[in-house]
């Protein structure tokens, strides 16, 4: 039986959902769009959409996956307008230390690309990897992934969703989810080195 179809008796009113899930939505938004400012706006928009749309949720898990889906769509829309992402990134460069931002991330990616490039010329990739690892936290490494991979990694590792659930959240076939996860892990592995176990 589909877990999302199970009825439950918990309070599914918008206010209750805000209390239970706004932190999750906020974290997903920060992780996916890499900007705390934008994420705050997205959280507001997601819950306003919830009120306007009034979807009939079967249970709390269903509600949460709906909220996450809308969050990701909002992030997607934000990324479509390059203007907002660039402006907010620049703003946060000076002020906000909480999240990473795309500009810095891009620089890091290029830096790490350059580093690994040089290293390969010197036949010492390990040194380059250690270097990049020092520069980048786990979170920043995830932020450097392309948006879809970022979303999947976040939903899988933070929200503990399974492949089928991620597929319904990002509205893609599960094969695509698997490949996003696989590629995401592979790139994280390139950036972070051997330190972490991705299977657990």
């Amino acid at each position, binding site marked *: 039986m589909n877990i999302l179809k199970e009825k439950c008796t918990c309070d599914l009113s918008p206010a209750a959902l805000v209390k239970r899930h706004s932190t999750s939505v906020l*974290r997903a938004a920060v992780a996916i769009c890499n900007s705390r400012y934008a994420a705050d706006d997205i959280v507001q928009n997601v819950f306003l959409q919830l*009120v*306007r*749309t009034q979807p009939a949720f079967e249970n709390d898990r269903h509600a949460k996956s709906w909220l996450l889906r809308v969050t990701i769509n909002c992030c997607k829309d934000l990324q479509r307008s390059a203007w907002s992402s660039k402006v907010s990134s620049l703003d946060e460069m000076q002020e906000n230390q909480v999240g990473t931002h795309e500009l810095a991330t*891009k620089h890091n990616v290029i830096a790490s690309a350059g580093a690994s490039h040089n290293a390969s010329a010197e036949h010492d990739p390990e040194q380059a990897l250690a270097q990049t690892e020092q520069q980048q936290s786990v979170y920043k490494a995830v932020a450097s992934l392309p948006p879809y991979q970022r979303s999947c990694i976040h939903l899988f590792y933070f929200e503990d969703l399974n492949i089928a659930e991620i597929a319904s959240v990002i509205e893609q076939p599960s094969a695509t989810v698997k490949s996003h996860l696989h590629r995401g892990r*592979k790139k994280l592995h390139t950036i972070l080195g051997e330190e972490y176990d991705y299977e657990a």
Partner: protein
Amino acid sequence: MKPNTFKNAYKQEIEKIQPHEDQLASLIHAVEAEELALTGSATTAQSAQQSQAQSTADSAQAQDAQTAGAANVGQGWTASSPVSTPTKSRKRFWKDWSTEGKFTATFSGLVGAAAMLFLGILAWSTVTTVLPSPGEPSTHPALQTGLPTEGMVALIPAGNDYENVYAILDRVRARDEERLRIAQEQRESSGGLFDGIFGSDSDDVWADDMPLTDDGWTEEAADVEAPTSAPDDMSLSAESDSSARRLLSEEPDFSDTNVQVQGVQEADIIKTDGHYIYALSAMGLSILEANGGNPQVLSTLDFHNNSTDFHPGPSDIQMSPRNTSARGTRGIASGASYSKMYLEGDRLIALWSITNDLWTSVHFPEFAGVDIFDISDPSQPRHLNDFQTRGSLVNSRMIGSTLYLVSTVWIEEASRNRNDPTTFIPFVSSGNESAPMLTPESNIRISPYVDELRTKYTHIVAIDTTRNGQLASQAALLGGSDDLYMSTDNLFLLSEGQIHIPAAGTQGSGTGNPSPRGSGSSSSSDDIRLGNVDVAGNATTVTRVELNDGQIDIGNSRRLPGIVNNQFSLDESDGVLRIITAFTRWEHFGRSGSGQGTTGSSEEIGLSLAPAEEWGWSPDFTDTTVWTLDERLEVIGSIDGFGIDEDVYSARFMGDIVYFVTFREIDPVYAVDLSDPANPRFLSELKIPGFSEYLHPWHDGLLFGFGRDACEITGIRGGLKLSMFDISNPKDVTREHYLILDDFRNSDASSNHRAILVNPERNLIAFPADDFYLIYSYNERRGFELVEELPLISEGDTPARGLFIDDMFYVFELGGSPNVEVFMLPSFRTWDFIWL
């Protein structure tokens, strides 16, 4: 505690993200306020919002755009409401005026709304009476009047030290100055906009005794009559070469650059020979060993630190106001880097160019050049030679081991010096030659369409890349070029211009008719097409250049009405050039600007809405024509009446049949039979929403189309669209399947066929779209199916290319952080990933 799993590490970091103190409270407040506001409003409003909220912002945007478009059309209708019973063609016309901002903007200032109304009636009456239906015998108005029937390129009479060339440049210059002066006078006197554009009749400097129209002609005619040698052996030898190589060393099966003509290479940013991959990115030119799916970077070539100094000709020292920068090593020249390359045997040919900053005058010298590398050892590429031409590169092609560069060379008037041919003759300089190699005078031709002459050349250079690389031949045509098409035997230069057909009955001094021998038959007096109305329109000059294995020989030119979409609008088969043009007619109304054509069209039609002092040019209608031309570029046959008021978006010649797509609001796919060049026959027309910008043959009588979806009513564009047409019966073309990619709007492949990989054998359709690289397959029952949707790492306009070698598919991202990702075919399992 040091986290040992990625999950814990990631969770720890994410959990640091907390809502602000009052964020939750304010969020609940906002939600409750919204709830309150909604319960207060009517149910219809709620359902409307509901539907809006459910759709993604993307489709919401599209809806907005549609409504905006509908509003536009609505305005158009309002404007046309004084006229009763609107017809289809008029509706389309009005929409032009309301949606095509540039026309509206130009004319609203010029004539105002009353004149627009008048124009509408005028153009409508013309359109409804003139438009031929597809298949009607060709009676192109422009063919009947004003178009030159002779298209001979003039040979410059042999002289000493380019004296004749110099004299002709003098005349071109004098004529240009005269034109400028007249245009300025007219502007000052009447404020007219368009005579400057269409040129005025100031060709008096071209007296009948000009050598190029009399003497030159006959000489050249004799030249062309001479039998041409069979150039086929070149392509044959190239083919046998490659097949021999294939036999020797079990060549892998790999995808090459997507080219128009088999046997004619086109330059691209990525090349492979099946063993090694050559990629151009911000990192420079990277050479990778494919290594069965685990690619390794062997070496990287940087433009600035290899090989020889830059070799500008002696003239550049005087000519360039910035000669210090152009003179030194080319590393100083700003912005120069390799742009594209060719791969042929063990030669790698990298193209580069130095172009002007946008805000500087176009008359500063520009440079285009090639570096030739020996890559028999790909880990140590060896620089063999380099060639530079002065000018901006139009395009390039390669047949066998012969490279053809076509560039446009402007002559700087201020420094033109009779005693120094390098100041006014195109030349090639090379790292292995000390002196610049001037184009021989016998290889310089003059375009017959003297009204379009400027002091610029089209410079064609053939370079033999075998051995150390050497100049095979060079030729120059006085007259510019915008684009080119190359078959295995000939090069066709394309240059856009205008034609001007004066009103019937007036003195025929149109700028479109430079030949003293007169033009084709003028229209009869009862020809309603022209009446006493001045007509002008866009035109394309085609010039045929024979290649003869590197020995360039410029042949005839022909000006055709209309413009060419891109290289796919041309095709040469059995010596017959087939070409598709879209001709937009402009009509002169009101008082004639240049003193000719005294009758205003308003009186002709019996309306006097336009005040006498208002005059100008108005776009009349667009018509698409398929032409067939022989080796002398004489028109054999033509068929028109396609895509009325639409633009050509793509074309593909497949044997005797050409399929082409025109578009404004809806996408007709036309099929025309050209098996009898004298009588092209209309076969079929398929109307579907959207349009295709690139057509590629699939197997089993199918034709693949890559384009955009569009609203049927407004023509507003939607997402990318893949279409598969069944052309097994050209008389009844049908659309088998299509797929609209709503999430994707832009693709490099829309304008660059080298960015798309279409391979029916492997069942692969791969192309970049927005920030993704998409790979689709096609199934006859189920249609297009997504195989892989690969997000690109760098965002923005990153060039991406896909290629396969045996069972490995490589996706190259060649932007700021270049990388390659390898997948296994056919499962598309990830195999490897490296940074370049």
